[in-house]
């Protein structure tokens, strides 16, 4: 049975992503665990980081798309709250059809919360909710960016580890 080689360690990352251990002496590591299990586990760790990176990239795209929508909705509700008369709008009926509608003064608006749920809120509450959503989305985007930067470092260190071990095995084989 192969033993688990300590290739990663807990890090200071707020999302608890482990960081890669950088080995000073590759030779000792190869001698202790054997080149093949070492390379295999290094590769596994590397793929895990890559996979996580792809995941975070995807969620970053989603967040980036949501942000302008929340900002627009917030502005609209604030405008609706401030205006005293009914307003006329052009809205999208379907992909290529738009039509005019008039919106009378209402005390409340309806927000689509997702998953077939829509709730009606008075202006104040809607503004609060949208502000909170906006803040959450912005901080989620920030932490995703932070994680991506951290992951990039770990991926580079993993690649360095992999090539050092590989080169060491090649050299030691040539030496024999």
């Amino acid at each position, binding site marked *: 049975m192969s033993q688990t080689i300590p290739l990663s360690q807990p890090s200071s990352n707020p999302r608890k992503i482990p960081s890669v251990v950088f080995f000073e002496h590759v030779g000792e590591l190869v001698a202790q665990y054997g080149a093949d299990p070492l390379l295999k586990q290094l590769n596994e760790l590397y793929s895990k980081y890559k996979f996580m990176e792809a995941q975070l990239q995807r969620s970053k795209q989603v967040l980036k798309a949501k942000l302008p929508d929340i900002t627009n*909705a917030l502005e*609209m509700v604030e405008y609706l709250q401030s205006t005293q008369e009914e307003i006329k709008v052009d809205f*999208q009926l379907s992909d*290529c*059809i738009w*039509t*005019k509608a008039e*919106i009378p003064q*209402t005390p409340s608006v*309806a927000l689509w919360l997702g998953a077939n749920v829509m709730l009606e809120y008075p202006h104040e509450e809607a503004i609060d909710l949208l502000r909170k959503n906006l803040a959450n989305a912005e901080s989620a985007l920030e932490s995703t960016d932070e994680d991506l930067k951290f992951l990039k470092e770990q991926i580079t260190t993993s690649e360095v580890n992999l090539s050092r071990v590989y080169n060491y095995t090649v050299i030691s084989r040539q030496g024999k």
Partner: protein
Amino acid sequence: MELESLNPQQLGIVKEQLDEEVEGLTNSFANLRHAVTKYKASKIALENIDQREILVPLTASLYVPGRIINPNQFMVEIGTGYYVEKTRAQSSEFCTRKMNMLMENMDKISKMINQKKRYLDLVQEIMRKKIQEFQASQR
């Protein structure tokens, strides 16, 4: 093209080319079908509009109760960024025309796809024959 004169390697290249073409055409077909569905949905929306109170979408997640001012007047996007005011009948007719044009293109593409697939089968058949001949000559 004289397929019989090509060796298995060249046939392989022809096969790959054909595979790519079929994939591209199938994608275009799917896109056209998607567009047809959208126009169909637009038509249905047009027919269901009247003067009742509706929830007007102001953004993708914000809706407000309101009323359509003129259920007979619509703005149709006839191209990227070009909008024309049309009556309900005209808009519906526009959607139908667009749908028909797209479906005609879909037919053309599906004919091309079938043609390429038949060609692909032919190439694979000849490849098989060549490989068999080559193996037979080795024995």
